[in-house]
């Protein structure tokens, strides 16, 4: 069996074909999740950015449904893990068992050996088990008993977690959180969407009717197309400036990692591609800053005492940080005129 590797994702496709494929996926998912177009699009963008998705919200807003709908829309291998406190790392990665017939150890692949892995209630598992995901999420491989097994492409972990319920949960460690490209919140549906949901979901689960509209090979091509999107130097500088700002912000104990810069640009490329552009805009970065960066940073004790959420801090940085631009052209960016980086945190006076 020849496993397609991440370095050969397949050739990029023409833009109309790309648009048709992606809109098919989105329409498909929206049959199940109503009125959450932006969230669905972001989830798809994370898939195209070769990232992993953390869906964090209160119970009952459709976290698992979104994960399952995305998985079902793609004709590929899907595994689901229900994280419980007694789940073991070997349940996730796989285990070597002794085959008495062959008198040898045989590797039984765990749940991660699939294109899409849906990890439900990930913060209910013990840190030991959570850590089993570290290697596979970043390196897309599993090492058991000294043997390394490559994972299939595309590979995506869609995890859900409940932020409110703290009893019996183990918060994700920073290293684990950093491996998720984006954290999204479902949010409550608006009344009309909720009404439509009552009409549609009353009798039967529409998830059961969902058919795959694409397959793993096509997803690989979609990924390749998204990779091909142009990110100008100004955009890259802006991404670096954003990440640097989180590292220098006085309210933050831990800023965003270099990995996050990479994932920010990748996701922005995917979003741009989904919007039919072949170039990334700073607007994309601004829109993605909160989902991509907010779950990785840690506020200081003071900021926590002031009940400053990381989302608020990141969006404030976005609002304060001037776009990188050529000062010889326009003098109006007075904030860069003098002083150091602390100037970026002046009140936004207009």
């Amino acid at each position, binding site marked *: 069996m020849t496993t397609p590797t991440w370095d050969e994702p397949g050739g990029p496709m023409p833009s109309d074909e790309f648009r048709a494929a992606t809109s098919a996926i989105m329409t498909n998912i929206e049959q199940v999740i109503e009125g959450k177009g932006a969230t669905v699009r972001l989830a798809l963008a994370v898939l195209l950015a070769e990232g992993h998705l953390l869906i964090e919200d209160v119970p009952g807003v459709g976290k698992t449904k979104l994960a399952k709908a995305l998985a079902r829309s793609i004709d590929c291998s899907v595994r689901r893990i229900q994280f419980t406190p007694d789940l073991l790392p070997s349940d996730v990665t796989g285990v070597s068992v002794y085959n008495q017939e062959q008198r040898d150890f045989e590797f039984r692949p765990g749940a991660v050996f699939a294109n899409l892995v849906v990890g439900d209630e990930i913060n209910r598992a013990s840190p030991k088990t959570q850590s089993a995901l570290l290697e596979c999420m970043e390196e897309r491989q599993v090492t058991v008993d000294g043997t390394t097994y490559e994972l299939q492409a595309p590979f995506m972990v869609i995890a859900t977690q409940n932020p409110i319920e703290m009893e019996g949960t183990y918060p994700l460690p920073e290293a684990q959180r950093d491996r998720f490209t984006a954290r999204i919140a479902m949010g409550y549906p608006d009344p009309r969407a909720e009404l439509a949901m009552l009409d549609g979901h009353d009798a039967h689960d529409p998830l059961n009717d969902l058919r795959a509209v694409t397959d793993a090979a096509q997803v690989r091509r979609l990924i390749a197309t998204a990779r091909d999107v*142009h990110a100008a130097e100004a955009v890259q500088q802006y991404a670096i400036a954003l990440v640097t700002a989180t590292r220098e912000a006085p309210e933050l104990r831990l800023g965003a990692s270099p990995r996050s810069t990479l994932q920010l640009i990748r996701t922005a490329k995917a979003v741009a591609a989904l919007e039919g*552009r072949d*170039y*990334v*805009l700073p*607007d994309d970065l601004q829109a993605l800053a909160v989902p991509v960066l907010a779950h990785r940073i840690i506020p200081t004790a003071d900021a926590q005492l002031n009940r400053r959420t990381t989302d608020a801090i990141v969006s404030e940085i976005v609002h304060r*940080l001037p776009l990188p631009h050529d000062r010889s052209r326009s*003098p109006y960016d*007075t904030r860069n005129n003098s002083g150091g980086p602390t100037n970026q945190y002046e009140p*936004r006076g207009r």
Partner: protein
Amino acid sequence: MSGRRRLGLVAAGATLLAAAPISSIFDSYTWLMQCLLTVGLIAGAAVGARTLRFPAWAQALSMIVVLLFTLTWLFGSGEEFLIPTPSTFSHFAELFTQAGQDTRSYGVPVPDRDGLLFVTVLGIGSVAIAVDLLTVVARKPALAGLPMLAIYSVPVAVYVNSVPVLPFIVGAIGFMWLLVSDNIDRVRRFGRRFTGDGRDVDVWEPSPLASAGRRLGAVGVVAAVLLPLLVPTISGGLLSQLTQNGSGVGVGTGNGSGGRINLFASLSGQLSQTEVVELVRLKTDESTPYYLRFGVADQLTDNGFGSTTPTGENIAQGLPDPRTGTAGGSFAEHRAEVQISDKLQQGMLPVYQNTVGLDGLQNGWYFDDNQQVVYSNRRSTKELTYNFEYVRARYTPALLRQAEELNPDDPIVRRNTTHPDDAAVATLVKQLTAGKQTEYDKVRALYEHFSTRNGFTYRLSTQPIANSSEIASFLQTKVGYCQQYAAALAWMAREAGIPARVAFGFTRGEKDGDTYVITNRNAHAWTEVYLKGFGWIPFDATPAANVPGAARSDFAPDVDLPVPSSTASETAAAPDADPSAAAGGVERPDRPDFSDQSASDSSGSTAGILSGTALVVIGLAALLLALLLVPALRRVLTRRHRHAVTVPRQPKVTSLEGPADIVVTAETVKARADAHAAWDELMDTMVDFRIPIDPTETPRVTAQRLVTDAVLLEEPAAAATLLGAAEERARYARKPLEGGELTVALNRVRKGLARSANRRTRIVAVLMPPSVLMRWRLGLAEASARLVTASGRVRDVLAKASPRRLLPHRGR
């Protein structure tokens, strides 16, 4: 001793130093002893109150009580012992009244009068309390300068024009001492001072920060000295120095020439007063009286003419008769009755020249034989009524030509011909007196120079010329009033070697029946020239048409008459000419018809000056307008440039029809440049129309915000979105937008903005584009920041070479 108590003593010392200006008011130093005692006791009370840790109000109360006790002790009515009683206060009230009378009746320097001393001690004591409270309790020593300055205002009020400088310096030193002490106290309370290397810093050793203060101080002093020199109008008008009371500065040097009222200042004050006040009513049996006269200024220094204190004999001993020892002329005896109103209060009595007898006056009036003025040091002319007899001398030019030559060793000549050197005056005098033989002819030549024919006009305001002496600039601008004319003629006569001085008095005034009513408008100054054998002869050089009640004599006829007056007077030089007829010919109480001529003459030349001024004003206005238009022009040029940069090569004819469209070429670089230029232009336009620019916004968001904020309608909105998209693609996409008509879009956006903006914003956007102004401002700020950085670098380099590094204590 704690810092507060020490500061209280410093406040007392500073108050005493600030009291130095009082020395120019009093004749002796009794006041100083009393003030020392009072201020010392007040300071002692303050120290005591602070030692006992009284609250602030109790400290103030104790000082006030001590002041009251001291005043009772020094100025008590004699019935009480230290404790003030009601009779003490009524005595104080009497002292106040007495002081009020004394200020009216005494000229400075005043003798030790109880009332004046009481007011002085009370004032200084109050200032001491105020300074103490402000410095020690309120910790605002800078404010303490105000009461200290109040002391200085006393001599300023007394010496109208010239202000004694030395006492001010002493007072200022006191103020500085107070400020320095307060600051040192502040630093001490903060803690001990150390250098960076741990060495203890002495109290008086300046901190490194002090150098900034020294620099600021030096700049401030230099600016304060230089600015008045550079701006000539601040110096207070023409001849302000020429006519300054020369004795003012000399006060306190002990030469005894105590400054009396500054005659020039009071003269200009009376003339420029808006209301007309009746001063004197005079009845005389003379048909054509000359001017009433009360004072002279006969000291000419670099500062101009000034008065000296008159000295002389009591009038009871009789007045000299001018007829004895004169070389000739006709004399007529007359008699005059004078009634002075309550508005004229001075120690100098207005009388006619050559007064021979006075009656109706109380004792205390004296006559100065040199100045020929009647004066009193104690009495005032207020509401006086008196009679006097005088002799009117009438001379003819021919007679005056016979005056003997002056002996240069004669004390009158010596004293009245001293003058500062002024090249311009010397040249003019030499030129005017060339070929004149007699003293009288020389004076006539100088006198006739001041005619409207030579362009001299009368105006109460004068025009100073920078970098030239006051007299020289008067002779050049030829604009002034009697004070300048009189002083200039006297100066020029002295330059010619003829004794001359300035006389002060009143012109004849208006005739009401047989009485002349003299008001402040009749205040006047003229020149008196000494001719040997004849004494002091008056010459009035001021244009007669502008002086109400002006008079001329036949030896000094009106130079503005249409007939060349010099020849006319010379033909009438026969010794037997009828003096009354000649005098009648020049009598001008009710403006004979030829005065119109001279009036129109002067107005004509005024019009000439005016048109010149108007030209200058118009020129300045045009220049100002041009300067105001510079930002607008700059804006238009920038826009043209941006449009032109992006114009593809086209025949030149099209560019004449206005800015061509920005046609985005196929060339990517070019297209990017086009989009950037259009975007920059859009940014400037937004700034012009006061739509804020946010550097955190992307072009897309900025365009959207522009549409919503400025309420752009369809076409401009589409144009704004197009500009945003073009800039966005130019910045971030592989291929920029092509084929967009960006100039058209820009024009549409600008029109849309103008439609939604109010009128003021529209006008400002065109005339004073904020984008240009902001660019300039930012450029300036950047340049100054660069300068600061560069100077800091230079200082660092210089600091390496500084010899201070080698000083031994640095290692400690």
